[in-house]
């Protein structure tokens, strides 16, 4: 980087830079200002005791003070025990609290280690039957949230602190005003949550203001997983579900899967329930003996994710081409399994099946090997079929519903039937 020269001290050989319009105009005021050593508002010491002299004297006196080593005495420190000790408290022994961290679709069961009332470490709760101590990076980092100065601790109104009394007053007035109209024009914006307490409050408010409207906003939509699961498992979804708009929530036993294909699904990183998937995936790789089986992960993705980094076989394709790969994979599985296509599944895939685009993809990833991508898909399909009932195909939230449906059909045993909802 070229250093910025001091104003005025420039030769004409270099390009002239200016820092203010005054300098550019080269006004006499500016010349006068520049010739002074200090700007007008800085006060100069004109006393006989200059600043330099003062510092000299002071440093000498500090030195003399130090010769006496008066600062080298140990200070008297005090121990302040409790006046009334809380029950069951031992200083120096951390306490553990079981709690949970609410996330969009559920709550992560956690165990928080605290010393002297300060949380210092967050881990998964090992006694929880589902997670068995699993956490993800968000849960691990959430200990910092507890010390976040921006954490909501008091009421704010238009970004400013508001006294509780003032807020209650405002809410009471609002309630009075709304009760005359039944809550017409009253809207609540909120994030997605699985909290039963919030649902209960929502129902209470809805009972009082029947015309109030509720809006859920999330910056990233993970609902496609639910929609795909509901679509591909229609009977279960329509009979058992009390809330048809959300339908089925897919839950994967990744620890039992022998072959996992991820279609842009970062299940070890940023996807939902990754705290369960990380643990499950690790369990599928843990070997107790030499004959133990081990899972195999195929990742098709555009970004470099943790899932791709952990994959045994990673296919790097643009995000727009995942659909293409999914269609080819589906077609290949059907072809290799030899099951008759009674439901017309292949016809639905037809518009996506194009050898030409596969060849273009291969040319981009491995120049000079046009058959590379299709060979990758063939081997992947072969592996899926050789582990019938133990294979899992996952599609990420960035992918369209079609890819999800193909993936849902591909997981487990449904793929082999060739059935599609």
């Amino acid at each position: 980087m070229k250093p910025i020269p001091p104003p005025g001290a420039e030769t004409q050989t270099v390009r002239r830079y200016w820092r203010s319009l005054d300098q550019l105009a080269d006004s006499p005021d500016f010349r006068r200002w520049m010739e002074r050593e200090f700007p007008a508002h800085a006060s100069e010491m004109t006393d006989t005791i200059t600043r330099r002299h003062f510092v000299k004297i002071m440093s000498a006196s500090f030195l003399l003070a130090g010769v006496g080593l008066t600062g080298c005495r140990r200070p008297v420190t005090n121990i302040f025990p409790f006046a009334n000790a809380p029950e069951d408290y031992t200083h120096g022994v951390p306490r553990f609290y079981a709690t949970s961290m609410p996330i969009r679709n559920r709550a992560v069961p956690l165990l928080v280690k605290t010393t002297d009332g300060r949380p210092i470490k967050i881990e998964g709760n090992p006694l929880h039957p589902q997670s068995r101590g699993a956490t993800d990076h968000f849960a691990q980092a959430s200990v910092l949230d507890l010390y976040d100065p921006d954490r909501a601790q008091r009421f704010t109104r238009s970004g400013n602190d508001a006294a509780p009394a003032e807020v209650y007053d405002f809410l009471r007035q609002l309630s009075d005003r709304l009760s005359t109209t039944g809550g017409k024009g009253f809207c609540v914006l909120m994030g997605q949550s699985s909290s039963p307490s919030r649902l209960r409050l929502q129902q209470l408010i809805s009972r009082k203001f029947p015309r109030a409207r509720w809006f859920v906003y999330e910056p990233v939509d993970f609902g496609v997983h639910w929609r795909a699961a509901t679509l591909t498992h229609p009977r279960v979804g329509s009979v058992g579900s009390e809330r048809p708009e959300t339908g089925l929530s897919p839950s994967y036993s990744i620890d039992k899967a022998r072959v996992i294909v991820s279609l842009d699904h970062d299940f070890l990183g940023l996807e939902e329930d990754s705290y369960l998937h990380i643990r499950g995936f690790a369990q599928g790789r843990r070997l107790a003996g030499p004959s133990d089986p081990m899972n195999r992960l195929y990742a098709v993705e555009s970004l470099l994710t943790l899932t791709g980094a952990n994959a045994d076989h990673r296919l790097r394709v643009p995000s727009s081409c995942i659909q293409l790969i999914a269609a080819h994979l589906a077609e290949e599985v059907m072809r290799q399994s030899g099951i008759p296509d009674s439901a017309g599944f292949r016809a639905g895939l037809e518009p996506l099946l194009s050898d030409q685009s596969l060849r273009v993809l291969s040319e981009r990833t491995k120049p000079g090997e046009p058959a590379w991508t299709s060979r990758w898909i063939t081997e992947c399909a072969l592996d899926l079929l050789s582990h019938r009932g133990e294979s899992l195909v996952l599609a990420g939230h960035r992918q369209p519903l079609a890819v999800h449906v193909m993936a849902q059909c591909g997981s487990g045993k449904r793929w082999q039937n060739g059935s599609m909802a």
Partner: protein
Amino acid sequence: MSDFFPKWANRLPRQIAVGGILAASLVTAGIWYYFTPKYTRVGYQPIQPVPYSHAVHVGQLGLDCRYCHTGVERSWYANVPSSSVCMNCHKQVLPNDPRLELVRNSAKSGEPIGWVQIHLTPDFVYFNHAVHVNRGVSCVSCHGQINELTEVREEKSLAMFFCLECHRNPAPNLRPLNQVYNLAWSIDPQMQQDMGTRFVHDWKINSPQYCSTCHR
């Protein structure tokens, strides 16, 4: 040849001599200060805000250490008791004694008593009370005959050599577990040595001597 040594080299011998004398006196002064009880504070006996006597409570009355220092078996820290613990007895015993004014006020108001800290290891030293007392090291080994002290003072140096001495040869400081808090307990030195050696073997005591044991 005249350019071979610069002019300032003439002053060099004198400078070396002065520097050497300065360095030597600094080292002497440092050892004088840091290696003597003045620094390790053996005998440090500050006046506490409440004249609590271990000699009366432990020596005469036979109070167990753990009645007040409740955490010693579970924590690295042997806590100073809260005022409410004192009041357990002193509600009835000497309930109006002026020496206990501070304790009564503290228990009532919730304001803690500022006891003066005596045994102070630096922050870079980790010491765990629980580990030691649970393996047969008595309070006496580090704190001396505290059951005879009217005002607590620092009895042992608690410097690094003191820790290492015992970690190299723990046998003389090991007791049967039921005598750890019996501060008046004594035994013939030869029997102590035999017993300690047996405990080291039986309890698999492997007192570590590497740096990170304490400087962790």
